């Protein structure tokens, strides 16, 4: 079976689904990109959406051993790829 992948933004990532970070949208300001890199959001890094609190609250993502909360505005600028069998 050949594994296909689907690219989406981080906000679209379903809960408890693992994805691989493929990059950032060009519109993302440099300083936020830098901060995300400092947090460990590197290309090729595995990311899991751990929680999606209700009412549009920022979502919780696990990157390596740490968890971070990103709001919609920022998560839309992070591109991930999900394996689809």
């Amino acid at each position: 079976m050949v594994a296909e992948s689907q690219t989406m933004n981080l906000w679209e990532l379903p809960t408890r689904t693992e994805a691989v970070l493929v990059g950032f949208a060009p519109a993302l300001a440099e300083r936020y990109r830098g901060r995300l890199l400092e947090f460990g959001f590197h290309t090729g890094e595995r990311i899991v959406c751990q929680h999606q609190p209700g009412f549009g609250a920022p979502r919780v993502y696990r990157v390596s051993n740490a968890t971070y909360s990103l709001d919609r505005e920022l998560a839309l600028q992070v591109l991930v790829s999900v394996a689809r069998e």
Partner: protein
Amino acid sequence: MSRVLLVGTPNSGKTALFNRLTGLNHRVANYPGITVDLSMGRLSTLPEHELVDFPGTYSLRPISEEERIAVDHFAKALDAPDVAHVLCVVDATRLEKSLFFCLQVVRECRQRGKAVTVLANMGDILARHNLAIDARGLAAGIGAPVLVVSARTGEGLPEVLQRLASGITSEASADPIPEPALLAQDDESADQALYAEAHQLAERFGAPADQLLLIQSRLDRFFLGSLSGGLSFSLIMLVLFQSIFTWSAPAMDAVEAAIAGLGSWMLPFLSEGIVRDFTADAIFSGIGAFLVFVPQIFVLTFVIGLLEDSGYLARAALICHKPLRFFGLSGKSFIPMLSGVACAIPAIYAARSIESPRARFLTYLAIPLMPCSARLPVYTLLIAIFIPRETALGGLVGWQGLTLFCVYGLGIVCGLVVAGVVNRVSAGEAQMPFMMELPAYRLPALIPIARKSVQRAQHFVTKAGLVILSVTVIVWVLGYFPNQGADLGASWLGTIGKWIEPVFQPLGLDWRYGVAIVSAFLAREVFVGTLGTIMGIEGAEDNILPLVEQVQASALPLGSGLALLVFFAIALQCISTVAILAREANSWRLAVRMVVAYLCLAWLAAWLTFQIAAAV
């Protein structure tokens, strides 16, 4: 005297280490951004060395005000000849988030010829789960010694002190390594290389923390759930305010009884005259009325300390982000605003961690409206006068606690409304996105929190007590003379009070309350002491009656009591807060405008309240 710099990423436990090494008791909490200024203290076992605690930062390239301050000071300190050693703290349970900054620091230190030691903190948490990092391998990879330590248990700290004592400059290279200084350049490719290096090192030498994250994830599922998250947030806030009354009530009763007992025992020994009158009116009625509230300050600080240490506050910031954004604020505004419930001054400092200048400005506007502990004695007094000490729901909810919850809610709502109105009517840059590290949950360390609460209560007594004592003496002298307390209305205080009475008459308050309100502009708590002194002179009884009973006997109308509550909820009456606001916002104009605007708003809202109560 040489200096040792303590740096690290936010929430890596720097300040807890600082407290351990210096024996001091600076503020610590379990969320990022608690240290916003430099702290200094001598090492307790090596007093010839001064330890400097820096605010946490993720990188030497700052994106917020707090980080800019940390990085600027760090850059200057590295060039200072008296800086002998740099201690870089990393979170051993989450190496990835700390190593990028750590590599930057090690590189800067090597470039400037400074000795550096990496402290992998929270080793006790790893040990508890049978995990460990490869400190030796990590040291080889980083190019600096790595010691596994625990600020909580003290593990590894003797080795740190030994290093500082024996070879404080031995690690420094005599000839600085000619690497380009990160602080002076903006090289993306160099950053990329460091990111990759940090990532590799963490993967190779760090501990897999799946087990730790599993526990965190389970708790988050509850505390961040759509329904359970909102309910638990409301419940935690309700318990916070209920506890102020229910937990402190026995201690408050004991203090009140002790003051009354001491007065009844002591006064008969004093002969009739000025000394006896002063002791009864100014000391027992004035100062005593204020001391009754000290247990509440302790309980408030203790409960907030529990929340801070548990890791819950970062989750509360997340839950509140969306609603706060409606008012132009950010989820990160929640933590300074909650700190403002204890005291506005640390809350204003805490607002530095908000990256968005606009959200920070709006947070400054909201903080003085948060119901700080200085308002608590006034609220408690007025609630005790009008609300019976009864409970509902089988003793689970006290009416006094519930009323306090509503009064606190009033201050919070006012803060949000002011921020929202200013956000809509004034132009400004767009909001910045929200990103926040979520710290691990942990059981709060009760002893340090209790120690901090005692300190806060002591600070409340010493700082406000001095002002209250001075004002009480002045008020007593003005109220006692020229007729030796025979007729308060004809005293000097009565004369002054009647000049200002027209301002407060529309609120249904006579000149005695007017004088107490004016005196509260020095500090809000002074209101209680001043009123206690005035009632004491007027009462002229030998028994020291609690202030609540004296005000109840004076038949203060309910509408006026409510107007007083509303006035105190809004008015900005704290000189220290105004000065810190002016400094942090870099604008005296803003601070003065806020004082005037909040004063006018407080009076208008109080007048409206009185009118509505009178009509009903």
